[in-house]
């Protein structure tokens, strides 16, 4: 009885507070929903938009991801469309400030929301991704959008999951005066597309590489991921753009990602072999060298939820 009336009262007060807040909201929103995208030139014809190395929040609006564009003689190639409709609209305006050339192609490196939820703004342009990526976008895009909305609020308003429409695979593709090598890998997700611009030596690594931001693992296969990093090491790039974190001109971002993943894998395997329970594994200390990577503590806790059961299952008897 008391609980029920409490709940009704609480709802009433919630409505009152929400109404009060919404009177002020539009004014505030108009001022603040600006991602302040500033393209940074990292090579000839090549600009990147480096996001914050944070998790989704209401203050960053999901601008936690790197996107990029290459201005070819035929038009502009965009690599990843960002976390929201609003982001992609502002991205297109940022591109228009650099070049009058039209956007002619968008690539999604994988199916995670921060990399493709801007696709709806490119309805007039071919949007391309690996077949596994498109399948993932179709399957999980709507749930991703709801989740991102919950985490980042108004910034995501009007965003609708729009899977890429064109399937691409490994191979070489020429666009204007640029030659792109498409490399189909997996490990961070089931489909991770890496683009190597042979004309400039820029490698767009997607989320196979994180730099100074702990890697995320909700769809990861760590073994495949480590193998993919070895493939990246074999490419002689001049500049690498990771999916998250600053671009680099050497192998340090790959190496940091590799060290972190190797530790996650060995820590989880050893814990499973000791018979540790998930709640105990959450308390494992991250080694000092890796603890310095922002969000390593938080991402390790998430990785336990994503990955531990696989290692644990391998330690148990056959079913009987």
């Amino acid at each position, binding site marked *: 009885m*008391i*609980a029920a009336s409490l709940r009704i009262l609480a709802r009433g007060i919630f409505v009152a507070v929400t109404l009060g807040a919404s009177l002020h909201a539009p004014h505030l929103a108009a001022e603040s929903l600006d991602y302040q995208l500033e393209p940074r030139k990292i090579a000839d014809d090549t600009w990147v938009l480096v996001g914050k190395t944070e998790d989704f929040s209401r203050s960053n609006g999901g601008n936690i991801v790197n996107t990029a564009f290459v201005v070819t003689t035929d038009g502009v190639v965009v690599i990843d469309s960002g976390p929201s409709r609003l982001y992609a609209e502002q991205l297109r305006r940022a591109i228009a400030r650099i070049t009058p050339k039209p956007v002619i192609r968008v690539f999604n490196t994988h199916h995670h929301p921060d990399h493709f939820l801007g696709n709806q703004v490119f309805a007039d342009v071919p949007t391309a991704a690996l077949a596994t990526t498109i399948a993932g976008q179709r399957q999980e895009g709507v749930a991703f959008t709801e989740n991102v909305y919950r985490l980042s609020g108004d910034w995501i308003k009007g965003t609708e999951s729009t899977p890429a429409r064109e399937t691409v695979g490994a191979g070489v593709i020429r666009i204007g005066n640029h030659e792109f090598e498409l490399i189909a890998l997996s490990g961070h997700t089931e489909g991770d597309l890496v683009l190597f611009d042979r004309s400039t030596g820029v490698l767009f690594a997607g989320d196979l590489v994180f730099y100074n931001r702990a890697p995320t693992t909700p769809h990861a296969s760590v073994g495949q991921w480590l193998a993919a990093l070895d493939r990246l090491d074999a490419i002689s790039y001049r500049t690498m753009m990771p999916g998250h974190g600053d671009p680099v001109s050497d192998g340090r971002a790959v190496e940091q990602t590799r060290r972190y993943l190797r530790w996650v894998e060995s820590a989880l395997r050893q814990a499973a072999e000791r*018979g540790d329970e998930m*709640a*105990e594994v959450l308390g494992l200390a991250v080694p000092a060298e890796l603890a310095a990577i922002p969000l390593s503590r938080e991402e390790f806790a998430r990785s336990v*939820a994503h990955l531990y059961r696989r290692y644990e299952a391998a330690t*148990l*008897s056959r*079913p*009987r």
Partner: protein
Amino acid sequence: MPRLQYLSFLIGCLTFSLNVLAAMGDDPLKSPQWTDIKDRYLGAAKVVFDPRVVVSGPKVAEDSMNVPVGIRITGLPDVRRVLVIADLNPIVKVLEFSSKGALPSLHFRMKLQQGSPVRAMAQTADGVWHVGGIWIDASGGGCTAPSVGRSSANWTETLGQVQSRVWQGEAQSRVKLSIMHPMDTGLAPGIPAFYIERLSLQDASGKEWMAIDTFEPVSENPVFSFDFTGSPPAGLTLVGRDNNGNRISAKVVQ
């Protein structure tokens, strides 16, 4: 606003605040449901918040279908039974266990519909309830989503299968068990409640070492870990049943 209405609104607000405070009682987790839960599950018995009852788990549930929870009770003699509840879950009671020879500790995974306190309430021989708990935040959906196994065709073939392992430490040992079962809550549309109700660990002589009554919020294909002083008893067997009368019986692999 006429003055009288304004006054009664103020009184209303004040009453509301007092009610909330009364509902929280002395709860360190400040849950609005605490006094209701105390009345419902613990009755008039004496209740103390006790640091010897330790609940561990994530701050945020990354996977709300499989939230890992550990219960450890150390230095509290004569624990007769332990209730585990999640205040704000649609189904509050998660499980109840009595360690009749095993250590009074248990690890398992559960579903959380939203952020909630998760508590262990241990009753000692004198009737006193000793309560410990943590707050776990969750984005939700754990209880109203269908079990994952429902989408695979062969879940009936693996129903009730058990995997196990024993780890022998210097002073303690651990038994970990995984049981194939959908553990449907009945809250997903069109899928009736279907869950394991009772599990028991018995040795070769039939003596019971641990008894658990499980409820809908326990995770699909549940995994449990039990700890023993020294070695686990010889010939340990897991027996149990679900609410449809299916039996579970499997020898623990030593």
